[in-house]
């Protein structure tokens, strides 16, 4: 008797209205990716090669040691893969726009190595603000870059020459 009353009440319930926007209700922000580039739009900023944070190499020799744009692209792809998969630092990268990072990092390295690109990303300070990364995280990133350059066969001295361009950025990319 009681059982059938409960069942009856159960079936009399209104189904939840499908007009409720549950994302809105739980303030979930949905990312709208650009349909052609697959990137999440950023707040506007001034585009300039100066945002790359380093003076590029002169001549072609560095670009050649990195295998030109093709080599640089492979290095950046592997570098980003390693960073997102690295348990030491994955939490910092998680949820950030990987598509954009692959493009801007490629542009930055290609620009600095004088391999024929312009850098269109943000400057190092504003793009790393609030990430809370420490010097230890930077070391992890450097190790991953070394690994990616090594796999591409970049001679160690040339690897260091690129790192020499990046090393002065520490104050901008590390907060603690």
């Amino acid at each position, binding site marked *: 008797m009681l059982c059938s009353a409960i069942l009856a009440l159960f079936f009399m319930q209104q189904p939840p209205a499908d007009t409720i926007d549950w994302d809105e209700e739980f303030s979930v922000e949905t990312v709208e990716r650009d349909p052609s580039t697959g990137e999440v739009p950023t707040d506007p900023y001034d585009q300039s090669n100066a945002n790359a944070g380093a003076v590029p190499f002169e001549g072609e020799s560095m670009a050649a040691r990195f295998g030109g744009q093709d080599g640089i692209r492979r290095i950046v792809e592997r570098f980003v893969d390693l960073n997102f*998969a690295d348990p030491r630092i994955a939490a910092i990268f998680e949820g950030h726009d990987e598509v954009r990072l692959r493009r801007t990092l490629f542009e930055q390295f290609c620009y600095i190595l004088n391999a024929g690109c312009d850098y269109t990303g943000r400057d190092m300070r504003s793009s790393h603000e609030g990430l809370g990364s420490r010097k230890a995280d930077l070391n992890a990133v450097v190790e991953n870059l070394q690994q990616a350059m090594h796999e591409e066969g970049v001679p160690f001295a040339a690897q260091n020459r690129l790192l020499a361009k990046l090393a002065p950025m520490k104050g901008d990319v590390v907060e603690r």
Partner: protein
Amino acid sequence: MNQLLRYATLPVALAISHAPVAAQDALPEKEAVPQPSSIGSFTDYNAKLLLTNGVSAIDGASGGGISDWATIAGRQESRGVGFQAHVTAVLLPDYLYQSHGLSVGIADRLELSYARQNFDTREVGAALGLGRGYTFNQDIFGAKVRLFGDVVYGDELLPQVSAGAQYKRSLDGPIVNAVGAAHDNGLDFTLSATKLFLSRSILVNTTARLTKSNQNGLLGFGSHANDGYALHFEGAVAYQFSRRFVLGGEFRSKPDNLGLGEDDWLDIFAAYAPTDNLTLTAAYADLGSIATFGGQRGAFLQAQIAF
């Protein structure tokens, strides 16, 4: 830990003979994604870049083999407490030097170190009337503070600069006094600057040391004729062949308070990290004249573990 012990007992010579080959294939072609390693709540993963904690100098401080650098021991950065332990032997024509020690690096800021030096005089002991195999011993307690700068990052012209002090205590008071030393213990003060010039793959260190030490303190401190502090210089230059392998040379000037013809020191060294926590160092060292016995050149060998 078992694995560590196994590595620690690897014959040093074997690793050295492999070093040049290893320099090229120091990293396997496709290395798995790095895994964090931690030995406790004090330590992070290996937070420092390989070899940037230096090796253990004979004074126990981190640096090269015979000179102290501005580096901080252990593989931790700003949040961690790192550890470093080493065993060193120097095989000389007339003597056998051995030392071991432990150091702690706190937040990549403060380094505290302890080293025990044992200097076996072998046959010379008999010639000097001390008895064959007489062994000089010394304890060294060191503290070093990183003042500013970074070995790797920041402006290439701004080195990492550290200041240090070392309290040295000879355990052979009556004998070093008999040799003419004024004291059986003393303090050294150091100021070091170290930088890895990435654009050239060259690491440079310079250290200024105020000291009274005779043969590093093994023969006491100062003399009755000459008991003042003197300013001495230590330099090191090393070329980085890979993340795991460097080759370099060092120089260390020393006083001659006892008038025994004490010489400056020189070496050529190779340091190799077969694993992330083990560093093997081999050097050819020229320690000149020691207690009037000249031509003390020989092999410096060290195994160090660091976390």
